[in-house]
């Protein structure tokens, strides 16, 4: 009856027939026309049981509730700040959500956040017209100090964080840098300049080579060669929880062709905010 016409983990191009017959279900990035399932964009085919979906390889960030992002303050308004997020839409951060400090009416808001400052914030709400609200209340959410900001493909973020956070902690261990990764593809790195440069190169390498198997080993080798340090890969148990989330996130990071649905995070996640990001230990 139904048959799959593509190989798992291969690239599909828009319009390509992925499966024939009603035995299979179209997942995100795919659509059904007649009896066939077609690819709705370019991506990596992922077959899970009866469901077929596509994992994006390119494309801009689309804000999603629950995501922790790195943004740049682009304007100061009466009641808050406008934050750009490296995508088509900007977000609003209200005074109440920015700090627990008391800010009197009419105070100069640039004392707290000024144009050009980078912040780590969490998306609390996204409307159908993609008006985005942010909050900075939560562990690890804050104004980012000196460091460098790196722009990467948002679809590679799960790869940069790595399975069980292994990748980013490996880079941190090797370069002695503090690294924060936002879901929108902005990365903040702070450390010794030499270490920062190695971290940047390593992240670029991950971005470029994320499709070849054995990525972790290659990056490990690269870092060891650059720093001359021996690296042990160990995902400490304290990271475990957020690591799992990361894995799940990767699975869920795709949106359907129609784009209507926006998934709520299950309760557990809502409270574990920054831990996903391998923020520096506090």
């Amino acid at each position, binding site marked *: 009856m139904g048959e799959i016409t593509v190989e798992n983990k291969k690239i599909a191009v*828009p*319009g390509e027939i992925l499966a024939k017959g009603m035995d299979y279900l179209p997942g995100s990035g795919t659509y059904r026309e007649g009896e066939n399932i077609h690819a709705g964009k370019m991506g990596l085919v992922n077959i899970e049981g009866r469901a077929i979906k596509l994992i994006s390889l390119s494309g801009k960030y689309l804000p999603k509730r629950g995501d922790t992002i790195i943004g740049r303050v682009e304007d100061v308004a009466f009641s808050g700040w406008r934050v750009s997020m490296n995508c088509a839409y900007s977000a609003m951060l209200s005074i109440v959500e920015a700090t627990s400090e008391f800010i009197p009416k009419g105070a100069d808001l640039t004392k707290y956040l000024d144009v050009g400052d980078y912040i780590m914030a969490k998306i609390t709400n996204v409307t159908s017209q993609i008006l985005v609200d942010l909050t900075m209340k939560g562990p690890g959410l804050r104004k980012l100090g000196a460091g460098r900001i790196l722009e990467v493909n948002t679809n590679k973020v799960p790869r940069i964080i790595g399975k069980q956070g292994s990748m980013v902690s490996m880079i941190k261990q090797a370069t002695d840098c503090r690294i924060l990764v936002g879901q929108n593809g902005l990365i903040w790195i702070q450390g010794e300049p030499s270490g920062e440069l190695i971290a940047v190169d390593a992240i670029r390498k991950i971005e470029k080579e994320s499709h*070849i198997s054995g990525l972790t080993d290659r990056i490990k080798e690269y870092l060891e060669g650059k720093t001359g340090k021996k690296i042990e890969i160990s995902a400490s148990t304290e990271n475990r929880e957020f690591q799992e989330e990361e894995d799940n996130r990767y699975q869920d990071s795709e949106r359907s062709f129609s784009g209507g649905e926006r998934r709520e995070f299950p309760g557990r996640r809502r409270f574990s905010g920054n831990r996903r990001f391998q923020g520096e230990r506090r």
Partner: protein
Amino acid sequence: MSYDKRLDGRKSFEDLRPIEAKTGVVKRADGSAMFRIGRTMAYATVYGPRDLYPKFLQNPSTGILRCNYNMMPYSGRGERVKPGGNRRAKEISMVMEKALLPVVDLSQFPNSVVDVFVELPQTDAGSRCAGICAASIALADAGIPMKDLVSAVSVGRVDDKIVADLDYQEEAYENGPVADIPVAVIPNSGKISLLQMDGEISKEDLRKCLELAKKVCLQIYEVQKQTLKEKYTGFESGADENEKFSEPEVPEQSGSEEMKGDYNAQ
């Protein structure tokens, strides 16, 4: 006297000129592609979805697609092409946009815009078709949700023959009537999203032309598909992907500068 041999030496009247395509040619763009058919060459770059100003252009129910067709000054045959927009470029930008729109789904990106810039460094007829082919590869490369790719080719008649992919010599054939019909086909459904004509042709011949266009567009579709897949095949096998994707030393600067100019002109 009838038209019995193709002027550029192609064997059959249904033969296309040699095609070459490449994706990811402009590093700073969100998606890019080069498509060459014979001596006609098109570079397409895609930016976005990004925010759209002036605000009155924004559409709250969907993102919009904006195409820009530009022949470079030295791209024509002989005479220098006057740079900048003109009526012809404006029309072609519009028809390219309409040819691509049926496959592009921007409903996820309200109030935003996807910009497509098509630059032609060299032309020998069929430039809007090459532009559409390049643009559809570049849009896919940029990860834009699309129902299908779009393949385009010009068909027509030269004197008494139905021919595919006319070059300039054929378009300017003087010993008999010529019709030049650019057609864009959505390969999976076989629907036509661009149909224009210059010249004269009978009803029966037009039917034949369209059948021919659908047939040869499938050849172009295969090339487009292969091009997109090739971008990542190096990765899958793990073979010298570094070499393949090493930073282009000179083109990077020139390419991005040029596109920047375009962006500012908008």
